[in-house]
């Protein structure tokens, strides 16, 4: 009699654990923008800039995504803002692109990708 309930609890736990591991946003401390840039044919987004606070908001609102989600659900735009910060006490470098995507790389070698579908107010063209 107890087995179905245990199985249900396990399934719910696993679902929660999986979704939490792929969707959690992240808080970066000591965030500082260091550069912005444009790659080939990116004139249309060359005005893309972010302040330190906007960059921090991006990572707070964005969800962690897989490389295939980054490729399939977002455009990889040729304009970016880069900077430094600290994640859980570890130094990190980050990049945010004008299409609402981001990348975080810690000095310990951890690479994470982010996508944000509710950051449009941060990405307002000038």
């Amino acid at each position: 009699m107890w087995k179905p309930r245990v199985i249900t609890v396990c399934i719910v736990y696993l679902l929660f654990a999986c979704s939490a591991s792929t969707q959690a946003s992240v808080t970066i401390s000591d965030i500082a923008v260091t550069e912005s840039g444009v790659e080939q044919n990116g004139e249309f987004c060359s005005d893309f800039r972010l302040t330190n606070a906007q960059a921090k908001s991006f990572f707070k609102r964005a969800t962690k995504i897989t490389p295939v989600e980054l490729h399939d659900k977002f455009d990889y735009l040729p304009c970016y803002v880069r900077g430094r910060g600290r994640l859980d006490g570890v130094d990190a470098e980050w990049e945010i692109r004008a299409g609402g995507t981001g990348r975080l790389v810690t000095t310990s070698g951890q690479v994470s990708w982010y996508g944000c579908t509710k950051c449009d107010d941060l990405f307002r063209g000038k």
Partner: protein
Amino acid sequence: MAEPNSWKAEIERKAENGWKAEIEPLNSVSVNNGKIISPRVIDKIISNLETGAMRRVHGIIVHQTATKSAAGTLIGYTGPGANGGHFLIDKDGTIYQTARITQRCNHVGNIKSRCKELKTCSAEEFNTINAILKFKKGEAYNVKFKGKTDYEIAIAMLSEHEKAKSYPNRYPANDDSLGIEIQGFFSHNQITKRDVFDQVTFEQNDSLTWLVRILQEVLELSDRDVYRHPEVSYKAASEAQTANWNLPQN
């Protein structure tokens, strides 16, 4: 990670020993109900990828999957809202057909302006495109773009504008192109500080050369109708950069 240009070195080494890609005679390949019938192609049609009949194929888009394994890619194709091409080429060169060539798949995304990229627009068209790309919130826009950044809306509107043109005045889109997916992961190289797709293997390029030639014959397409994904859409420049569909042929 594979050495840069490792497949080129492998081709040169094999060519020195008289190697040429095995190109099957076209008369040994047939098409049945949109499926390529050949010992080199494994039928893995996933109806979930097919989104409707495709009347005309104008181009072939070469992609990389950004997944870690072909098995994972195939499982992903069965999920809701899956994107993917008509063929998948595994690391060892195995070719899977994942959608019929008579069916449309979502594999391209927003298309760039061809005349803008090639700098061939008329003055009037150039001004129209630039006006679209300068889109700023506050202007009227389709509600389907709600939540997207100004830049995302601009390129989505540009894509809609381009799709109204006839081929080859625009790049091929989902409605008129086949997608060939090459199995390959996407990662960040911490030494070069670049986002990179896996190097395409020699076996993958060998199969790609064969498959592109067969599809060109069947669909009457030229070399000018074959594109790397970042050429037509806003995608990471390294996608399919090391793909080569012009290996030496027998």
